[in-house]
């Protein structure tokens, strides 16, 4: 039973007449979806790029190579590089526990994981102020030991980790629940170790969710404004992230430069998508190798 299930995966994307709609319906649906995306997404984004390039490419380049801008870019990348892997590991652990096992309080746990989403960015920043601020729980101790958390890089990283906390877990949980755990059980019964099962069966199965999760997490980590704004202290050239720098430029009536930075953020998101495509393509190749191996194992066994 279970070994048959293993191979279903490779066939699932073939279009079939009984499983799709007539062309006209397709185009109607595509049209509706595109109209919606145009109105709420593309036109606003178009404005960003339009405003960024309004004063010419020279102004654009000057804006993004300004020393303060470069330091903001560095800080943003650094923050994302810490926040994303941390939340990735958590997301995998959480989704494994939640999707593969039954236990009491599971719904509560899922809801708690979602909680950072529901917290206003203003509050998430405030929370860290209450924890690490001079008037907060750990603030006085930190100051005595000359450690800077809030209004320094660690505070920005913490706030970002908090804000992007649920993304990977939230992508993986419904996906893994929908998939069930027959394949892993089969692998374990066939004698594979836990880690091996995870890397060979679970990981390839959840690659989509994982990728989306990481991409969302990364995009949000780089774009977060509210929470970071509360804990950053806005010190030019040292604790300004890209979104904060956008605000600064905007408030200096330097609209073209502000939108240039914003467009850069948009493009960073696009870069992650290119990476996604590359990984997708590589995984597809690896998967076909894997499928061949599995078929061989089945034939021999």
């Amino acid at each position: 039973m279970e070994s048959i299930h293993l191979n279903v995966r490779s066939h699932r994307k073939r279009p079939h007449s009984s499983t799709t709609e007539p062309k006209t319906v397709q185009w109607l649906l595509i049209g509706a979806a595109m109209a919606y995306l145009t109105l709420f997404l593309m036109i606003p984004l178009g404005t960003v790029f339009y405003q960024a390039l309004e004063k010419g490419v020279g102004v654009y380049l000057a804006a993004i190579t300004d020393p303060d801008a470069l330091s903001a870019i560095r800080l943003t990348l650094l923050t994302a590089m810490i926040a994303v892997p941390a939340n990735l590991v958590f997301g995998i652990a959480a989704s494994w526990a939640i999707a593969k096992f039954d236990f009491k309080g599971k719904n509560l746990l899922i809801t708690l994981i979602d909680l950072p989403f529901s917290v206003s960015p203003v509050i998430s920043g405030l929370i860290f102020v209450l924890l690490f601020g001079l008037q907060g729980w750990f603030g006085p101790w930190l100051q005595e030991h000359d450690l800077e958390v809030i209004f320094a890089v660690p505070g920005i990283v913490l706030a970002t980790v908090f804000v992007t906390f649920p993304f990977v877990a939230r992508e993986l949980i419904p996906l893994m629940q929908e998939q069930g755990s027959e394949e892993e059980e089969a692998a374990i019964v066939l004698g594979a170790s836990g880690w091996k099962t995870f890397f060979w069966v679970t990981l390839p199965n959840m690659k989509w969710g994982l990728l989306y999760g990481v991409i969302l997490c990364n995009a949000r980590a780089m774009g977060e404004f509210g929470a970071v704004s509360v804990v950053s202290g806005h010190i030019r050239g040292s604790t300004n992230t890209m979104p904060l720098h956008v605000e600064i430029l905007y408030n200096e009536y330097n609209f073209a430069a502000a939108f240039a930075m914003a467009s850069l953020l948009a493009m960073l998101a696009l870069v992650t998508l290119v990476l996604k495509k590359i990984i997708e393509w590589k995984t597809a190749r690896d998967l076909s190798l894997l499928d061949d191996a599995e078929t061989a194992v089945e034939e021999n066994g």
Partner: protein
Amino acid sequence: MGLRKKNVLPGFGLSLGYTVFYLSLVVLIPFAALFSRTAQMSFMEFWDTISSPRVVASFWLSLYTSLSAASLNAVMGLLVAWVLVRYHFPLKTLVDALVDLPFALPTAVAGISLTTLYSVNGPLGKHLARWGIEVAYTPLGIIVALTFIGLPFVVRTLQPVLEDLDVEIEEAAASLGASRMKSLLYVVFPNLLPALLTGFALSFARAFGEYGSVVFISGNMPMRTEICPLLIMTKLEQFDYIGATAIAVVMLLVSFMMLFTINLLGWWSRKRTSSAA
């Protein structure tokens, strides 16, 4: 088949242990700080803070604008996810890529661009104004901003589930004589429902707390277009931390209840579909 009681899979202790540990570190301890701060005020003070007319008005405003935005996103997000996964059309990859951008764009930029577009003399607002529809500086503007920032949630939660959905089920339904509409409604949709609910809940929860983009487009008129998070900011501006955390706690409880209900619904619908299958 679904989940079973006796489980042969390893790693339960490790994965759940780490989950709970990390959750406590990043989420629970910080929240404890928040609640302990609120506990410094007496219940009457707390009640006075949260029942003042402006807080109540902003609360209802935040609630109904977020619900409208999340509903719009649920319907249209389902459509977008379906189109992106099942159909082929030119520039699909590009469109797919663009869906994430509301996350990457700083919320302030989103707010500024939307206000530029939808204000009475903006390129879109100009035409809408001719029909008597004002968007910027009205609750409608808030809904537009919240729709924008919540847009990726539904699409991105549905996409992996759709990618993974076995076409075989649909084929089976079709071969058993079900019409396309029927197989979509009774076979595909129930499978998507948990993810759809999750997407809706996330989109709502995100919208409910949103600040950066809304302050630009809402006009911030007290009693009319003043959202809850703005009131928290104004409390902070008066160095009234306790008052700010009081509103924060109420907001938090509302979204917690909302998320919890929806998670229960998702769990219930999953149970129903797995027992039906």
